């Protein structure tokens, strides 16, 4: 028995050894070296094109299957569940009264019992479909991309489709995931190590130059760790020193995507654990703006540190996400005005992910950071487009809020996102009562416009 196993063992060891060597050489040649020099073989784009063809086939198959069963296919965007007409409170209530009563229009009626129809209708409309809550969960896909997680009501259709899905599962978890995890560890490890080393150098041009190169290289490795296929548009508008770069926020990956194309000073709260280690070593190589948890509440302190940073022209542009929380990349929500009060030039950036390959949205109430990263690394790819918009500054007579809204509108327009005035904080908090009071005021004006309201 022993004799039987021994040669087998040896053979096994040799095979393992060879495969590991081959594996690592391939990794080095095809992924890490290009990352260092910032070139690309185009493998990822080829991969993306192949995937698209497969998805198209899968969609056709599903549509055919649905037709056989005589159902309408559930398409979230092409048929909205309700058609909402944007009319104002006054117009609608007048319309209801006009059609309901046979009184003269001129006799200003105070109150009609039918007035509640307006509020009832609006209320039920918002129950069926509202603009805000759907932004805090993953976007629904029109076609299936062979991932169970985006499977809404695509039930079993055909054997071929299931086989394809199974194959996809194997490839993603068996091949892509280990590859990506290896790369991720390499990237992060190199970042921590090299930035600490650079931190030992004296401040000066050499240090800045090296720190830039190191940051870029490590971020590029991380980009490959996610198989992120990014298209940058309008690179001539890239943020310059002394400016603030603002972008819409979908996930922590946004940082990696932007930072692999340019050098930024990050802003954020110091975390513990692995994040904290990374943050502390990064700040050794170049000045990032990290806040202690207690300092975050102090708005003046935050504003002062940021404005000090932008005034120093030798420091890198600041990267900020004014929404304050992750939104699901279908809309842009209210920008917090803090970063727009500082008075520096603002460089807006729009980031739009293609949800077909992998949903990048981080639903922090559903997934922790680690499970989120695992989901990212087991999707097909992260495909996104980044647009660098021309710089904007605050104009005369414009206050910070209006400026923020202007920037937000520009980003929404470029990225094809819905521009909302609602606060992203509604993810966790209740809406303020002032909005309800506004509606009540509007309605009371209708009852008797000649009366002055009790509260002005």
């Amino acid at each position: 028995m022993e004799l039987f196993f021994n040669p087998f063992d040896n053979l096994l060891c040799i095979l393992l050894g060879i495969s590991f060597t081959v594996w690592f050489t391939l990794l080095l040649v095809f992924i890490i070296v290009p990352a260092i020099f910032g070139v690309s073989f185009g493998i990822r784009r080829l991969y993306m094109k192949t995937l698209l063809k497969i998805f198209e086939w899968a969609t056709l198959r599903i549509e055919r299957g649905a037709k056989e069963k005589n159902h309408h296919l559930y398409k979230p965007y092409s048929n909205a569940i309700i058609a909402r007409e944007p009319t104002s409170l006054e117009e609608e209530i007048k319309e209801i009264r006009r059609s309901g009563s046979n009184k003269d229009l001129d006799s200003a009626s105070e109150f009609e019992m039918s007035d509640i129809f307006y509020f009832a209708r609006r209320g039920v409309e918002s129950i069926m479909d509202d603009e805000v809550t759907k932004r805090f969960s993953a976007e629904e896909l029109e076609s299936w991309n062979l991932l169970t997680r985006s499977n809404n009501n695509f039930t079993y259709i055909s054997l071929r489709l299931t086989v394809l899905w199974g194959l996809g599962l194997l490839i993603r978890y068996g091949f892509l995931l280990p590859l990506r995890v290896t790369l991720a560890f390499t990237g992060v490890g190199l970042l921590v190590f090299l930035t600490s080393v650079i931190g030992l150098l004296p401040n000066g041009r050499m240090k800045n130059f090296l720190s830039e190169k190191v940051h870029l290289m490590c971020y590029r490795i991380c980009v490959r760790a996610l198989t992120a296929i990014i298209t940058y548009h309008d690179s001539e508008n890239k943020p310059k020193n002394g400016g603030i770069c603002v972008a819409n926020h979908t996930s922590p990956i946004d940082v990696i995507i932007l930072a692999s194309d340019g050098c930024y000073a990050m802003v954020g709260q110091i975390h513990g654990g692995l994040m904290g280690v990374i943050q502390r070593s990064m700040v050794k190589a170049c000045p990032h703006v990290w806040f202690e948890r207690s300092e975050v509440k102090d708005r003046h302190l935050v504003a002062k540190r940021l404005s000090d940073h932008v005034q120093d022209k030798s420091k890198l542009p600041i990267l900020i996400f004014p929404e304050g929380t992750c939104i699901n990349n279908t809309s842009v929500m209210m920008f917090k005005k803090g970063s727009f009060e500082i008075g520096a030039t603002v460089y807006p950036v729009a980031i739009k992910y293609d949800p077909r390959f992998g949903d990048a949205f981080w639903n922090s109430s559903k997934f922790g950071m680690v499970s989120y990263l695992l989901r990212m690394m087991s999707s097909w790819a992260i495909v996104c487009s980044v647009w660098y918009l021309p710089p904007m500054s605050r104009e005369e007579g414009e206050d910070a809020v209006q400026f923020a809204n202007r920037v937000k509108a520009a980003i929404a327009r470029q990225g094809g996102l819905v521009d909302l005035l609602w606060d992203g904080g509604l993810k966790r908090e209740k809406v303020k009562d002032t909005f309800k009071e506004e509606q009540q005021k509007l309605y009371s004006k209708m009852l008797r416009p000649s009366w002055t309201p009790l509260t002005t």
Partner: protein
Amino acid sequence: MGSRASTLLREEEIEEIKKETGFSHSQITRLYSRFTSLDKGENGTLSREDFQRIPELAINPLGDRIINAFFPEGEDQVNFRGFMRTLAHFRPIEDNEKNKNPTASEPLNSRSNKLLFAFRLYDLDRDDKISRDELLQVLRMMVGVNISDEQLGSIADRTIQEADTNGDSCISFQEFIKASLVEANINNTSFNHLTKKIKILMGAFFINATEANLLNKLA
């Protein structure tokens, strides 16, 4: 993780809901998806907090009353069937339904059921009468702090005076119907106005201002 798959609607259920409410297959699946996204507790029912999480509903002056309409008497949870039953009131009346078999039970979105929904927004204690107090409560919800008690009281008094025909200082359901509808004969121009406005989208349904117009037609 696999909660969506386990709570997927079965075909029989969809058929039952279709018969009861008149929604189409795709509308039901779409609304089911909405129901599950509102159901944060993932237990197949919605509570009042789940509704209040919708910002646009929370700022609606009548928000609480509307939410109340979904919950049957004394209960705190509503399941998908109950959810659909209430939403069915707002389905527009389609032309092919007008000539339906008169002996069949009244559809949920019939005119009188729509009016009953609105009536119940006022009539909190379900005694089939809107008292002066109940009217005042709703008025107060709609105007907030902007109108004084006396002025509001006089509005309520005037409304009851105009609508009350049997002199009991309360508004019954019949009196309510008369007060919100046109009393005279059908106005043809209103019909044209109506048909111009109704847009029937493929696979979508709508509630818009013409809903109130529909309520006006006694035919």
